[in-house]
């Protein structure tokens, strides 16, 4: 196992977590008052962790770059949150949720962590309802559920299309209660610039006040990073503009191993890029694939005619359309998992069948669903011999009731009416399964530095199932980290407050200031966005939905060159002492330029295809992913050694004691 000890407790899977909670050390309430904890990031994981730690009695300081914790990007999650409540009586259980998650992750996650996640899932729903989160309900007043891709039960709880928002506002409210009690001190519009280690332990951070530009020292007995994913390394993604890897990367540079950076989820149904000005991508919920049929023209000249505006999609006859998912995967059709659907869309567009002006879009067509529902409605309402117009009208009403808000959003952005003409969609970067390596206690390889939520690597393997990100963030923050961190802090009850005038703080602050100075003194050739877009293009073209050794090798070289160019020639107007959004972006892009290279290196090392990681060399004759359990059933954890190319790989072998490894098939 090398230097990576996952610290998974012994014993049967179902007892591990309970046993562990009984075994670990606790800190008595009086001593908690003497212990400080820093939480960086205030999304679902950070917000819930901060609130719970403060409830327990610790002194918590939270940091977020947004102007309020309520704006963390967890807020944008649409679909729902999974929980093994079995309210529908369809045979759901913690084991089933555990099994679905492991399988969905293509057998690249840690059994014990995932089982704990499944176990805690039910508590999350109880906790959130108690907080006043307005989940959708049935007429009887009980909670409603819906189903999501890749599972056989109905276990997804939701609040309209804004589940993430409501859960985040719940955690934010819990934080507010503690802020009001004085147990949390919130530092908003602050960005973590470095992690400070004293005697090898995480003892604080250096943060930049984004309003005044001041560099501040903050000390604590432990530091929790809950800073989300790094999807913005692709420039275009469904992440928020400010989402970044800086905190995690700074910790990585200080000794935290970075795990599975190449495991990225590309979501199949996003609104396509409309031009070079595009700054971000918008997701259309996965639920649309229940009723929409995905297609491109069968003949390439039709595709060209559509791109040039000479032909309208509705004019194309049924036999001239290629419903490629239904053709390739007759068993699952349009409901194949995210990674499979995304790759199939890319394959068609690469072959020249794309349908928007950039050639990177496929149709998601509701016409046949409208007809089907229309006929059903006519029948149930006793309308005899309805004409086509009547059927269409009735059908549209059903579609509107199901997806009205999404259709409205699409129309606002694209300016086309999706009831009349098929939607255009294309895959987009959405979630990163990789992140800082953590053990069972969510501690990174730096003592006292913990990592929760999307920022860590732990639970989703190589592919995340829908509605599981919210579950993991809240499980980590509400129910796991507050207990496991106590075990570590129980050794710190006599330490006393950590002074911020230690030489380690001084050195770290000096390094941060030097880095900012260096950024400000670029020669002034190109804007930060120029570099970010270039990096994004390399990543998308060579480390995107399909990767190969040659492309990855090229990417490594190109990113390293781009990084050198960036440090030499980036142009940042204004000053460092005051609000400077360009400087903020520059710091983040600088770290993406390092992460991107490690990402490519990780993808190059993993000579197999699994989940979101598809290596063109490793596929079946039919073009399906070819996993290699014999050689790659491990977590790649990278140790920082200067340049990304020098990073050292450590492997955590994955042990499956409760699940038999199988090949996923959707044919």
């Amino acid at each position, binding site marked *: 196992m090398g230097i990576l000890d996952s610290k998974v407790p012994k014993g049967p899977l179902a007892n591990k977590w309970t046993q562990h909670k009984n075994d670990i050390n606790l800190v008595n309430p009086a001593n908690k008052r003497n212990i400080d904890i820093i939480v960086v990031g205030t999304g679902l994981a950070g917000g819930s962790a901060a609130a719970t730690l403060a409830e327990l009695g610790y002194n918590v300081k939270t940091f977020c770059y947004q102007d309020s914790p309520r704006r963390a990007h967890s807020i944008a999650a649409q679909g729902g949150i999974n929980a093994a409540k079995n309210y529908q009586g369809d045979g759901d259980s913690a084991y089933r949720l555990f099994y679905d998650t492991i399988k969905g992750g293509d057998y690249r996650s840690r059994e014990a962590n995932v089982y704990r996640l499944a176990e805690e899932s039910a508590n999350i729903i109880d906790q959130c309802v108690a907080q006043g989160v*307005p989940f959708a309900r049935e007429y009887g007043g009980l909670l409603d559920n819906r189903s999501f891709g890749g599972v056989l039960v109905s276990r997804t709880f939701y609040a309209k299309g804004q589940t993430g*928002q409501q859960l985040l506002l719940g955690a934010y409210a819990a934080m507010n209660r503690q802020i009001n009690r004085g147990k949390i001190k919130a530092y908003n519009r602050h960005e973590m610039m470095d992690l400070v280690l004293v005697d090898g332990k995480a003892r604080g951070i250096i943060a930049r006040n984004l309003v005044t530009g001041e560099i501040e020292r903050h000390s604590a007995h432990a530091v929790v990073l809950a800073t989300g994913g790094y999807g913005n390394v692709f420039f275009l993604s469904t992440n928020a503009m400010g989402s970044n890897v800086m905190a995690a990367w700074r910790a990585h540079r200080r000794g935290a191993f970075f795990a599975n950076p190449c495991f990225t989820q590309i979501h199949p149904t996003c609104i396509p890029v409309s031009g070079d000005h595009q700054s971000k991508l918008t997701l259309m919920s996965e639920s649309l694939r229940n009723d929409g049929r995905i297609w491109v023209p069968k003949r390439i000249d039709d595709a060209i005619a559509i791109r040039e505006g000479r032909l309208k999609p509705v004019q194309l006859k049924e036999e001239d359309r290629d419903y490629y998912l239904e053709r390739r995967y007759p068993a699952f059709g349009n409901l194949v998992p995210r990674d499979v659907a995304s790759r199939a869309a890319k394959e068609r567009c690469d072959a020249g069948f794309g349908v928007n002006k950039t050639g990177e879009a496929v149709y998601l067509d509701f016409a046949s669903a409208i007809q089907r529902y229309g006929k059903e409605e006519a029948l149930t309402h006793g309308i005899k011999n309805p004409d086509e117009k009547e059927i269409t009208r009735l059908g549209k009403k059903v579609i509107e009731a199901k997806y009205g808000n999404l259709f409205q959003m699409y129309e606002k952005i694209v300016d086309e009416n999706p009831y009349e003409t098929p939607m255009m969609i294309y895959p987009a970067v959405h979630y990163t399964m990789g992140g800082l390596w953590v053990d069972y206690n969510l501690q990174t390889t730096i003592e006292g530095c913990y990592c929760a939520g999307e920022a860590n690597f732990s639970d989703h393997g190589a592919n995340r199932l829908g509605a599981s990100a919210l579950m993991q963030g809240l499980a980590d923050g509400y129910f796991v980290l507050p207990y496991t961190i106590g075990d570590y802090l129980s050794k710190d009850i006599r330490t006393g407050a950590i002074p911020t005038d230690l030489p380690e703080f001084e050195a770290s602050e000096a390094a941060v200031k030097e880095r900012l100075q260096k950024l400000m003194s670029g020669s002034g050739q190109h804007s930060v966005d120029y570099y970010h877009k270039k990096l994004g293009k390399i990543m998308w073209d060579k480390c995107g939905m399909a990767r190969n050794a040659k492309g990855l090798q090229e990417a490594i070289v190109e990113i390293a060159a781009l990084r050198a160019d960036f440090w030499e020639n980036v142009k940042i107007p204004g000053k460092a002492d005051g609000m400077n959004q360009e400087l903020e972006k520059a710091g983040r892009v600088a770290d993406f330029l390092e992460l991107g290279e490690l990402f490519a290196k990780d993808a190059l090392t993993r000579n197999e295809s699994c989940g979101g990681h598809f290596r063109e060399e490793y596929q079946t004759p039919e073009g399906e992913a070819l996993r290699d359990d014999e050689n790659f059933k491990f977590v790649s954890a990278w140790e920082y050694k200067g340049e990304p190319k020098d990073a050292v790989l450590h492997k955590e072998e994955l042990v499956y004691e409760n699940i038999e490894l199988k090949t996923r098939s959707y044919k």
Partner: protein
Amino acid sequence: MKLNLKIWRQKDAKTKGELVDYTLKGIEGDMSFLEMLDVLNEQLINKGEEPVQFDHDCREGICGACSLQINGEPHGPDRLVTTCQLHMRKFNDGDTIVIEPFRATAFPVITDLVVDRSAFDRIQQAGGYISVNTSGNTVDANAIPINKHDADEAMDAATCIGCGACVAACKNASAMLFTSAKVSQFALLPQGRVEAVDRVQNMVRQMDLEGFGNCTNTGACEVECPKGISLKNIARMNREYLSASVKG
């Protein structure tokens, strides 16, 4: 399309600001309003000038970070959208667009178009929560059935994104719609009733302390709210407040 922009530029909180004219060419209808500003900023940076600073994050209409008073209206002329979801096709070639920060004494300008909306956080901290600890053994989520109508209404109130458009639109810079949305969400749910009396009094007290104006029922907030939060919530908060005052 070509646009004439008049944008509020202000170095920092202490410096006086002014509207500055910019001309921008080559704007497409598919761009969002913020992407139009991105184009402007890229040009300013390349000219060696300081870009226009503005708050934004998710760019999909849910985080509430983006603001901007556009031609005299928060989030611009379109309805039920935030600035990030406002598209340039709503404007015409040759238009003059005036862009100002959200104005309220309780929302001081930090720089350019960036304002400090932390007053909203403090209102929430005063009582916008239900006091329940995270124990892992609260009652089962289905132990208390909640009437679907009430749950849906609570959800409608809870969709507030805290952007501040209500304050920006109101001629009195009143924060009643924002405050009432949270008060209503909890007032409608049995979990929230326990602390209802203290909550409404504490939140209204904090709202007043922050220096927001008084509501005169003009209804501008409801019209401009990107999430369509209803004035009914204000009426509900008034009821809650009156009954809380009677109960002491």
